């Protein structure tokens, strides 16, 4: 019991200390809260604790299908097999718009968290190159699209400051990042359609 009381005083004093120190700047702090980027820049760069807590397993999704390589126009009277060479890089996006490949403290904390919790590394970008064959009928155009497998990780940074930062010792900062799923094959699809008159004039004239 005695110990409990001692701890109580400690905690209460901490509260009091924080309050006393912060009172003059509260209005300013509330009117001008830090941005997520400003907070995350402090991660392991002015914090006692900076940890990332994922809020669930990574969620897989398919990236947007987009054309890779050039279109193949068949201006002959025969079926043509064209080889489309392409190289495509899938990047990442996140809620602060900063590449996690950069040497920011919060990026390192995030990547270590991914490795520890999910046993794989975080890829900020992945480049795939290939030669894809496509059969194009006469007067048609062919092209290749690619969809990359993506993963999204969401969670919260828990940051403890030795002194109040914008009025608080502890900040919880939501964060979300989407990047290429490591070691996951992408989907490549061959497409054909008849050329438009404009395309015929432009490519077969």
């Amino acid at each position, binding site marked *: 019991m005695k110990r409990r009381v001692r701890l109580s005083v*400690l905690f209460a*004093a901490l*509260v009091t200390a924080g309050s006393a120190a912060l009172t003059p700047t509260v209005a300013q702090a509330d009117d001008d809260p830090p941005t997520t980027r400003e907070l995350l820049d402090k991660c392991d760069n002015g914090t006692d604790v900076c940890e990332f807590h*994922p*809020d669930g397993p990574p969620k897989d999704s398919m990236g947007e299908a987009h054309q890779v390589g050039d279109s193949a126009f068949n201006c002959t009277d025969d079926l043509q097999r064209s080889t489309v060479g392409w190289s495509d890089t899938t990047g990442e996006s996140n809620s602060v718009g900063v590449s996690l490949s950069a040497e920011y403290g919060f990026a390192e904390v995030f990547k270590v968290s991914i490795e520890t919790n999910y046993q794989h590394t975080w890829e900020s970008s992945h480049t795939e190159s290939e030669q894809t064959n496509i059969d194009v009928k006469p007067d048609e155009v062919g092209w290749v699209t690619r969809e990359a497998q993506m993963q999204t990780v969401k969670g*919260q940074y828990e940051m403890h400051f030795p002194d109040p930062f914008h009025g608080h010792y502890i900040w919880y900062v939501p964060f979300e990042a989407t990047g290429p799923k490591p070691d996951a094959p992408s989907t490549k699809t061959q497409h054909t359609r008849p050329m438009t008159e404009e395309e015929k004039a432009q490519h077969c004239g």
Partner: protein
Amino acid sequence: MISRPRHGTHRTVTLAASVLLAGAVTAPVAQAAPAPTQAPGVGGQPRHCTLDLGTDAEHCYATFTEAVDHASKGRIDDAPASARTATGDSGFRTEVERLADEDGARADGVIQGTFFDDPGFGGDSLTISGEGLCEKDGWVDYQHDLEDGWKNRISSVQPWGNCWIWLYPEPGLGGDRDGPFKENTGDIGDFMNDRTQSIGFS
């Protein structure tokens, strides 16, 4: 590891002191507190609940982010922590004792741990917040007996707030013990998987 019963004096002093904290840092919320989900888990989606150890109030939300917003009292921030040198200041202690006599609002929540139904931080979650950080002095600072709906379900855990997590298969920190879980743990292992009925934070 020794657990200590919570004591009324602790609660009284802490709550009263929180008045000052609230006065100093309670602010227009950066993110408005989301409305609790009325029918959590509908559509087979995981529900994310918060439990305040100070009030035993539980609320459930559709997303973890909303739950954390709620656990931190509608902000993405907050709570007291350091300034430990202040504890040696008799002036502070006097002020604290004075405040202890006043009615007080609850301290802003300090998240102490999140518990998940499935391995890999999957499924439903329960985020527990309390009055402060854990002290790292070899004692259980906070404890909680799970309500029936959460008994024998926990498969992954995340300690927050400087806490280590201890899991027990009986209420009141009884029976076997597993831990400490010092960091995010996606699989607590077979020993206590789906067996937890009470939790200690140290």
